[in-house]
């Protein structure tokens, strides 16, 4: 009792290591530029000044997979693009997360035919699905915040090796 009060007065915060690591991960998660089609335009709008995603830590969009930890698959993935997607996902360092933005990335969307992959979860494991065609920037931000909640709830034992 006494020591918590004293330390609080002195301006020291205590926490668990997992919480500290999760806090630091969510506060500066850099997405990889993976805009494919129409959802990419809404992703750019979400990054622009009106619906600013930098407030949530996504200050930059890194084109290189080696320097990013979140892949927002925005748009329809065709059969020709699928191996490229997988290769880029493999090049990202751990820990990494994937948001499937839009209907085409979640489930194939409007296009139920030979050319489009019915959901990007056929090639990469997805953490958050954001519905919409295209989803509003606010919906994308909601998806990002949902991902943050998921990351903050993750324990070290669950992290992929």
């Amino acid at each position, binding site marked *: 009792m006494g020591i918590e009060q004293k330390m609080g007065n002195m301006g020291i915060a205590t926490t668990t290591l997992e919480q500290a690591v999760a806090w630091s991960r969510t506060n500066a998660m850099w997405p990889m530029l993976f805009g494919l089609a129409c959802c990419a335009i809404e992703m750019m709008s979400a990054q622009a000044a009106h619906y600013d995603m930098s407030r949530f830590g996504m200050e930059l969009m890194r084109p290189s997979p080696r320097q990013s930890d979140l892949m927002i698959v925005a748009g329809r993935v065709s*059969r*020709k693009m699928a191996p490229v997607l997988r290769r880029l996902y493999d090049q990202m360092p751990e820990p990494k997360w994937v948001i499937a933005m839009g209907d085409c990335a979640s489930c*194939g969307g409007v296009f*139920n*035919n*030979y*050319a489009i992959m*019915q959901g990007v*979860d*056929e*090639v*990469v*494991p997805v953490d958050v699905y954001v519905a919409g065609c295209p989803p509003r920037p606010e919906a994308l931000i909601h998806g990002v915040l949902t991902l943050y909640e998921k990351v903050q709830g993750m324990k070290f034992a669950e992290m*992929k090796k």
Partner: protein
Amino acid sequence: MDKKLQPVVEQLEKELGCTVSETRGLVSLSVPAEKIVAACQQVKDLGFALLSAMTAVDYWPEENPRFHVIYQFTSVSGNMVLGLRVPLPGLNPSLPTISHIYRNANWRERELWDMFGIKFQGHPDLRRILMPADWEGHPLRKDYPLGYEEPQFTFNFDEINLRKPYAKE
């Protein structure tokens, strides 16, 4: 028919011996396959500098003719539009290339090869353009299936779920 287009059409009709038809304001000439290069050269000399569109239609299950290749030309200087139609049989359809006359026919012919299987003799680089290089089949043909996935309703959710390829990690 447009007044300016009339002499052009008459000259082409005389030189190539093709049939003229006009539907909904669009004039199109039906040209046999062996005369297409001469026709395109003539059309270009008559002032139609722009190849607007080049596409094909598949009339399966009719075998002869099965494909109709359609060329659309625009004359910028004379403000005229003209179309050509070439009927092709279903077995080994092929046409001579016009990519030396109109440069944008290069990719258009590659697209027709990819989507319909129509070969273009003399094309410098005939390979697939829209589908992956090792794809089999020609998607826009009528006997090629759409390839759709069965929608998951509640009654068949689980059995489709087992078949779907999910990435585990």
